[in-house]
């Protein structure tokens, strides 16, 4: 790969280097310092969030380690014997269905995937796309992604919540009992 040898490359680099910069702004500086002042207000916040340098030595570190070890030992001794109960390990099978016969790919993103990874839906003979997930009881927001870049609401969902960006996500409530539940 060449490094800036062509005339076009040099011109492009010059455009980028000469691209206008943001003008200095006293208002911006005031805004930042105002935000810091608001965040520092209150002794608790000040104690928690003010930057500080901690000085240490090996004796202090060993003492802190001993205290932590003691605390863990006490907690371990005192912990109650908890029966996780019948609901603890329960998960519910949820089938997500989207009727989109013209799509070439459909996936699913939501709270349960951390929104970053997506679950691919499989095309069915009837033109629908389906995926089955096993979810713990709880409330989840989700959306379908059609052809990798179209985010759409589940048309058959009954509950929605504003996503904070001018759109809405579907909301799925997974009950705390065993059994199948369809979404979409």
């Amino acid at each position, binding site marked *: 790969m060449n490094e800036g040898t062509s005339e*076009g490359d040099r011109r492009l680099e010059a455009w980028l*280097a000469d691209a206008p910069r943001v003008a200095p702004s006293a208002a911006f500086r005031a805004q930042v310092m105002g935000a810091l002042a608001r965040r520092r207000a209150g002794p608790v916040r000040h104690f928690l969030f003010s930057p500080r340098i*901690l000085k240490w030595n090996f004796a202090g570190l060993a003492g802190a380690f001993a205290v932590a070890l003691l605390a863990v030992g006490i907690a371990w001794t005192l912990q109650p014997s908890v029966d996780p109960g019948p609901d603890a390990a329960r998960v519910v099978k949820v089938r997500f269905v989207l009727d989109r016969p013209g799509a070439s790919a459909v996936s699913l993103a939501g709270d349960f995937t951390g929104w970053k990874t997506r679950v691919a839906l499989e095309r069915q003979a009837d033109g629908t796309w389906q995926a089955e997930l096993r979810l713990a009881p709880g409330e989840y927001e989700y959306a379908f992604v059609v052809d990798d870049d179209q985010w759409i609401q589940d048309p058959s969902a009954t509950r929605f919540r504003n996503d904070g960006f001018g*759109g809405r996500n579907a909301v799925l409530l997974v009950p705390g009992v065993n059994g199948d539940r369809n979404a979409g």
Partner: protein
Amino acid sequence: MDRSAQEENEWIERSLQGDQQAYACLVQRYERMVRSVVRRLIVSDAEVDDLAQAAFVTAYENLAHYGAAARFSTWLCQIALNKCRDWLRARDRHRTNIDEDADIEQMEIGDPSDGPEFRAEWGEVDSMLQQALGQLRAGDREVIVLKYVEGHDYETIAQMLGCSADAAKLRSLRARDMLKRILVRMGVKP
């Protein structure tokens, strides 16, 4: 250590002791850099100051973790990059389909063979560059902004992006070629 770096270290030390005026000096020194980087990376003027402000607040709250291994500007720029990445991820998560061809049509302002210097004022060139940057992948946009707009060397870019200097160089050249192709597609031949 030059006088400027020495002064900067003093500001950092005083900020750590709670002197907000000292931190204001750091903000004043780097606000242009941070706001310029953010503007080019998110390609949206509306959010620039909010994200830049968030970067400065995060830097302040984590100042005790700043190590002298990197320059303060490098560390601060890393924080700004992370803010932009978070914002872009959130935006992309909620973005609906965009018809990019419609935007490209609006950018046509004359005969490409004339070159932009003959048919566009600098404001228009900047607008086209911004438009073209917006069509790059976020990672490519980062290296273009850091290398060619902000003028950082490959070692510094490597520190910011967590890669080797060779990788930073390779990515910069590849991203520049990509940007050139996008500009040509928009009717601008560099």
